[in-house]
């Protein structure tokens, strides 16, 4: 492999540059993977209430026809808040056949589980962690290959970066269940609290 001149006067092998570039791709790739997966997750979640807007302050949905869907039920086991529109309004709506198959009023199911608490989140997190493990492997391989040779310091830095990226990702992983679970419990507690006047079915 040919050598490349660096701005500070030294040279690095092209293979070193390629390896470092690949490491950057792996670091960024792991992050992009999770970001994309999270976006698809939320998109799949929105699937059931496309066109409905959620007002977080008032905790209600508004349908494209302007009807409001208020909190009806909280499903503790499945971490699910269910909103429902008045049956009479839905049954009189011209869009009813495109909206709901029954006469009880359109419902929207709002999941309270965050991405990382779901199986899908864990799957994509597993993939991104594996990608970072590969980055650690390649960094270590580079360090061994160029140990005591020009460019060694590049792989020392890269190894440190790879380990740091892995550590940062692990910090957010489901393995840190305490934080994730406590967040979820806080959310559930709030949903079921007296202040909101709702415990179970309202």
């Amino acid at each position, binding site marked *: 492999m040919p050598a490349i001149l660096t701005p500070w006067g030294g040279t690095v092998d092209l293979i070193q540059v390629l390896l470092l570039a690949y490491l950057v791709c792996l670091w960024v790739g792991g992050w992009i993977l999770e970001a994309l997966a999270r976006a698809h997750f939320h998109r799949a979640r929105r*699937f059931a209430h496309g066109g409905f807007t959620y007002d977080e302050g008032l905790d209600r949905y508004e349908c494209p026809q302007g009807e409001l869907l208020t909190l009806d039920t909280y499903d503790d086991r499945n971490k699910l808040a269910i909103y429902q529109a008045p049956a009479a309004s839905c049954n009189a709506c011209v869009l009813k056949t495109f909206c709901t198959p029954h006469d009880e009023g359109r419902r929207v199911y709002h*999941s309270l589980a965050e991405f990382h608490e779901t199986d899908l989140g864990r799957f994509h997190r597993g993939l991104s962690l594996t990608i970072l493990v590969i980055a650690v492997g390649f960094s270590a391989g580079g360090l061994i290959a160029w140990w005591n040779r020009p460019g060694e310091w590049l792989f020392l830095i890269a190894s440190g970066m790879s380990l740091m990226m892995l550590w940062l990702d692990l910090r957010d992983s489901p393995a840190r269940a305490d934080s994730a679970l406590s967040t979820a419990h806080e959310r559930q507690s709030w949903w079921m609290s007296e202040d909101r006047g709702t415990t179970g079915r309202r």
Partner: protein
Amino acid sequence: MTLRRPMTVSPLWLQGSILTFIIGFTILAFSAVRIYQDPAPVPEKIVDETGKVLFTRQEILDGQELFLTYGLMQFGTIYGHGAYLGPDFTADYLHREAESMIRRYGGTEGARGRVRRELQENRYDPATGTLIWTQGQAEAFEEIHRHFGEMVYGRKVSGEGLKPAMIADDAETRAITGFIAWTAWTAVARRPGRAYSYTNNWPPEELVGNSLTGDAIMWSALSLVALLGGIGIVLGLYGRFSGAVGWHETEERRVRFVSPASVPLTPAQRVTAWFFLVAAVLFLLQNLIGGATVHYMVEAGGFFGIDLPRWLPYNLTRTWHLQMAIFFVATVYLAAGIFLAPLIAGREPKGQWVLASTLLGALAVVVFGSLGGEYLSYHGMLPRGQRAFLGAQGWEYLDLGRLWMYLLIVGMVLWLAIIYRGLRPRLATESRGNLPWLFMYSALSIPAFYAVGLLTHTQSTFAIGDFWRFWVVHLWVEDFLELFTTMLVALIFVLMGIVSERFATRLIYFDVMLYSVGGVVGTLHHCYFSGGPAVEMALGAFFSAAEVIPLTLLTVEAWSFLQLGNRQQPGDVDSFPHRWAVLFLASVGFWNFLGAGVFGFLINLPVVSYFEIGTLLTSNHGHAAFMGVYGMLALALTVFCIRYLARPEDWSEGLVRFSFWATNLGLVLMILGHLFPLGVLQLGDVVTNGYWHARSEWFRNYPWLSWARMPGDLVFMAGSAPMAWLALKVALRTRRTIEPTAPSESNLAATLYTEVTPTGATSGA
């Protein structure tokens, strides 16, 4: 007369699908006509300057047949197509020929120019069918024949993954070299009236003046413009209007799953337990044989000191690795079709299990018969006349002997009959545009498009044989299996209550249109450099780039769609029995995006393909797309179906969980820890040192990177073992049959779940 249920979606969906389908196949039919009109010619005879006949047309075609039936396309490549351990025979011959001639002419700069002119000059006379080679070309042929004799045909000891004395007959080896020499001639001789060769100047080779053609650059540039513009427009329109066209579902349903142990099983469904066992065993064997195959990259002479090539040379293990992958997926698809039919129809006709058992027997005969035939053919244990029929045809992916191919098609037709018989009562009451009929059509496309492979013969002119081969490899595998995949997933989601029948139907029509727009004509991107007419390049370049537009949409859509299963959030295992099946489906979404999408599109453009074809980046795409999409889907279907077939005490969530994580993470390690980085380095070597160099065991320069494959392979293999164990238990102790349920009235049978109202009461059945 039975009153049919009207279409659940607008008839415009059906009309649009038919229209795009017709347009796509009309363009492909045009290219089929052109390829018969203008392939690279096979001369009646090739003579030297004194008029002495070097070899004839028949010897070239015999050489092609021998090349294929001895499995050399599964050792190296020809025109960049085949396996990756050995050289690209076309490029290797061309480089050696040029070097030999330069040496002979004095090795000066003038000699180089003379060699270039001699090789590029087309001395083929179509009127007499005679091709004249210069003395330099004729003598180079003898020299290269001796080289192939030492390295490939008649090795003294095992090496390069090949056994010793592989082909002993001198007439046979000479014919094979003749065929290779002819491909090298097509790669450098300029087409009449053109400044480029029959292969559009492939392979890149400085010594003979082969470089990227202006056409390749122009079509790549034009198609890039179309690609970027098209993606922007399509995604913009999609983002703006996808909600408005009813793409999104109405109200989500909440369902409670019937315990798998309570779901009635029909006799034919019980037979599928054995199909799943066959599939799981094939999957395990396919992984193990894959491990041996890739090991030849680091230890050419054997397997950890064992002289493995003597019995299982690389070309055989590679053939089995590919064929078992196809058989594994096909077996699961056949079983899933039989399993799902009674769920769709709500009943099962009498005697269906007898047909299913017959199909199982036939499948076992084809699978083990064809694998055995390939062994006999590659070891030269069959007489010449029987080799392609009983042994191996040797075209990569269509490796199996012709007899086995006939039997496989007959088997698929029998399967179609089983499905039709099972669905008939339901079909009679449904509009021909509704989901049960779509299931039937997509099932019909599987034997129909596989049968196209019969147009490829061992003695077909290479460009024509390769064209039809890619109807199977691209159209069958990448389009119609993909469509059947969408069909099965959509059906399963309907059966699981995740999406409505109307939504699933729309999705399938949408997919048909997207495949027809890009995927069908995109077949031609495999044929840029195989000696077909130049129009293949233009069409292939434009549509293979254009297919990126619908396929981007498709993979993006699928990633979300395949996550829908997870909406039925698992409270616990009993309430949601398909946790791992939907996770396998979600992994299909991810691999479809990365493997088929990113890694596939990466190598599509002619300017990229020109340097990349036949490198590990192709293998990278193949593994990530085939295993990632079809393999994971097959595992999803297996887990979904055997969940119902297993006795509760035999089911193990732990085994399936392990299998899920090991197969997915193992595949990531395999792809990103080995195939992709090594493929990029190899591509760099093609550009720097030429194609022949990058394909001449170049990867042995990076032994540590080759060994990096091992962790991923081991993890992946470990993931296949639990599935085989679980399938064995289920096959031996299948849950008892319960009488079939009564026919359903209109909607797809909702026997797997009950709908739940928010108050907790159940509604519907």
